[in-house]
């Protein structure tokens, strides 16, 4: 496939990976921070799928959540604030063999990185994008983020944030070539794990917004949601996230949802954006959308002789 011969070596001895093989040192988030649950979920998925650590690349921007790669024992790229997606796409562009995970915050993705977010969605390269949405700038100590609820008192809006919060799901569902949009919550490890697993299975950019608790700065925002699960709406159905009945019981509100229906997905997102019936599960999935690596991989791994011949033909065109 794509003549990968010269660049890849074969996987030699049989290896079996345990959870520890993916652990990269003690995570230094605050006690109770939702980021930790996501870390654990991803490590489990990699273990379950026996993904070699060296074939996995975690890419992030800057923020509390963007420390994610440091706590994984895989390759990682902890780059610039807002720029996780271009880097991740670049990694994938000529290395389709690598399994790419992106960790990005609500500021990182939806504020400074918003332009890349639209376009990475359009490129739809095969990777999982985890939006750690804690509705605040954590690392820089409590400034308003685009997803901060109106009235949230922050250091930049001591009288309460003024603008209506950006809804990442509504936005995603308007971006061209969107292929996978899901939402989950950090405090339900089963649903979180199952959602990320579906995201990982999907070919294309799988966008998962994770409602992530930040007990340090936005405790109130999520406490309420967590206390009152009736504010959530569990999406279910053959094509949706499957969790076991015990977990399903936690959700008083449930709805059948077919992720191939973008109109329905938008309607769900719209209602959720009003703070009611916040949907959890897969809102949209379309595996048929083009993936940009099918373009960027062209000529991957051609031999040096073929390169040389191609170059000579090209130089001939300019010969006097």
């Amino acid at each position, binding site marked *: 496939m794509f003549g990968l011969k*010269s*660049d*890849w*070596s074969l996987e030699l001895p049989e290896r079996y990976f345990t959870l520890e093989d993916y652990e*990269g*040192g003690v995570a230094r988030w605050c006690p109770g921070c939702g980021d930790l649950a996501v870390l654990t979920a991803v490590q489990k998925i990699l273990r379950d799928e026996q993904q*070699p*650590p*060296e*074939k996995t*690349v975690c*890419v992030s921007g800057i923020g509390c959540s963007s420390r994610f*790669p*440091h706590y*994984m*024992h*895989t*390759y*990682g*790229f*902890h*780059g*610039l604030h807002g*720029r996780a*997606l*271009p*880097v*991740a*796409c*670049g*990694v*994938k*562009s*000529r*290395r389709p*063999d*690598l399994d790419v995970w992106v960790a990005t915050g609500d500021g990182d993705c939806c504020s400074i990185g918003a*332009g*890349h977010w*639209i*376009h990475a969605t359009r490129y739809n390269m095969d990777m999982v994008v985890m939006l750690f949405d804690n509705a605040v700038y954590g690392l820089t100590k409590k400034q308003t983020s685009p997803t901060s609820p109106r009235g949230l008192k922050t250091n930049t809006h001591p009288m309460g944030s003024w603008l209506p919060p950006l809804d990442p799901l509504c936005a995603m569902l308007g971006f061209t070539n969107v292929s996978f949009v899901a939402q989950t919550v950090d405090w339900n490890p089963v649903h979180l794990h199952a959602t990320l697993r579906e995201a990982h299975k999907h070919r294309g950019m799988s966008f998962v917004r994770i409602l992530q608790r930040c007990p340090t700065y936005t405790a109130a925002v999520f406490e309420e949601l967590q206390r009152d699960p009736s504010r959530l709406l569990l999406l279910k159905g053959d094509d949706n996230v499957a969790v076991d009945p015990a977990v399903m019981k936690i959700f008083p509100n449930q709805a059948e949802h077919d992720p191939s229906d973008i109109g329905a997905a938008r309607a769900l997102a719209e209602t959720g954006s009003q703070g009611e019936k916040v949907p959890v599960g897969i809102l949209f999935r379309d595996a048929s959308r083009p993936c940009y690596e099918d373009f960027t*991989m*062209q*000529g*991957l*791994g*051609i031999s*040096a*002789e*073929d*390169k*040389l011949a*191609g*170059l*000579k033909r*090209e*130089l001939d065109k*300019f*010969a*006097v």
Partner: protein
Amino acid sequence: MTGDTGTPVAAPLEAGTAVRLGELIVEIVSDSGEGAQKAGQALGAISAKMGNGVWTVEIIPAEIKPPARSRAGASGIRVRIGSGPMTNMGDEAGLVVALNEQVLYGRIEQRAYRPGTVVLLESKWKDDQQELIRRQYTEAVADFRARGLVVRELPLEEACLGVTSDPRVGKNMFVLGMLCRVCGRALEKAKEEVAFVFGRKGQDVIERNHRLLEAGFHFAEENVPERFEVPPAPRTTDLIVTNGNQAVGLGVMAAGMELVAMYPITPATSASHYLSGAIQKVGGVVHQAEDEIAAIGFAIGASYAGKTACTITSGPGLALKTEFVGLAVMAEVPLVIVVVQRGGPSTGLPTKVEQGDLLASLFGEPGDTPKIVMAASTLEECLLFPVTARRLAEAFRTPVIVLTDANLATGVAPFPRPQVTPDWFAPPVDQSAWDPAVEPFAWDPTTGISPRPIPGQRGGEYVLTGLAHTRRSKVAYDPDSNQRGCEARSAKLRALQSTLRPPEVYGDASGELLIVGWGSTRGAIEEAVDRARAEGLSVSSLHLRFLSPLEPGLGEIFARFAKVMTIEINYSDEPDAPAVTDENRRRAQLATLLRATTLVDIDCWSNVYGQPLQPRQIYAEIGRRLERGGN
């Protein structure tokens, strides 16, 4: 550089025998869409095939479709033909074909001609229906003559009518035919070239164009008294003809880079255009990103994953990439950044030349960001430097900026065909196991260099970060790590410098005046030095290819000259301008850099007219400086 550059183009002679010249500069100017460029390219190609040195440069208006007969709309081409290799666009043209008088004005404003220049001017405007045009034309012709131009008014369009029913389409080939006669180019060669260029369009088209060529040739025999001859020089090597951006594209391919990430920006874009159509043939791809930040980010991602990549841009794009360049330095990601400089600051003069991005390339990023900066001074270097840059980027694990400019980007000339061998290419990505005992930043204490694990290499797992980090690439909270990292990155420049040779002085190794240049001005500077030296002036020149690190030995070289000055296309206060003193004078960019490094009192001569420097201007400046004497 040419065998005979001391000889400027002779003033026009009476008809009869052709004047032998060391070189001849020809322009064709017209409204856009009249095919002047095609005709000029053919003239250049014919000349190159005849064994002449050639430098061709297109004259492109700033607007896409400027109104007809407007000065700012002047479109066309300049072809400089010489006996030896031509390295720049030269001085004022000796011969120009102008399809209307307004576009000629456009070029006069650009100082393209001098008294004595022969103008072959379309005369149909004399009888235009509109009175305004008639008047403009008549007044202009008188004015041109008053300026000393030798104007031949010629009914070109009418003359074409005998051969073609739509002279606006065919006139360019008619002009080419005329120029073959006037410039002593063989008509047969022109026919071959035309047959080649129009090959795909069928025999009919070729024949019509052949008829136009012949008609032009004969028309000139009868109507143009001037005839010039520029004898060719024997050629030894295989040559190719490209402009600087195509050369950059070929270089990127010859380096074996697989990924070019770019965002369109004049005058860099045409390099990406070329690559977009060609790189897949050598197994690569061009990614047009959503903006310049994403372009460099994408390239850095690919490079992190083992595929040394490049991004191509110009000033405003470089500005946007600043933060990512800093990351690439800090996290030691190999990367080639080609900057095709244009007029600045800000959006500036997008289609015009400047060398204004030197200091931004060196010092643009907050914090200490040692990186390699090179500047191509010839078309050949446009091709070769990306190859060198990729190697250096990988060897030193750092970004390398390659500076070129609009002058190189648009100049077309023959140069030796590179003899590419497979070792020019980036090697395949290493996916063998990595010894986990080797840290991802195992900085060598002397060179600062460290080997780099590539994703896929088992045992090499690490997390790249732009934060201060340890040799293990762990976020550093201790005060020492940052200092150690900075030291290692700085040592790399030292290590590279120790492998470079002192630059060669062009001319005598000591003397009264040394001119220091960098980038595209080399040809013009050396031509001017030749001319001055031919007249006995004690002047030499030195051209820098590495700007960071600087090539070694500069202080010693400078000490051998009474005066040292840089010549650059960027801004400096005129020393004689009101209130300018030695203390408050803002100097040109290379001068500033060299003064800080060598403490030599380096003067400069520079400007930001957006034009390539002409050898004649430099020559004149040499004279002035030597006269002024002292300091």
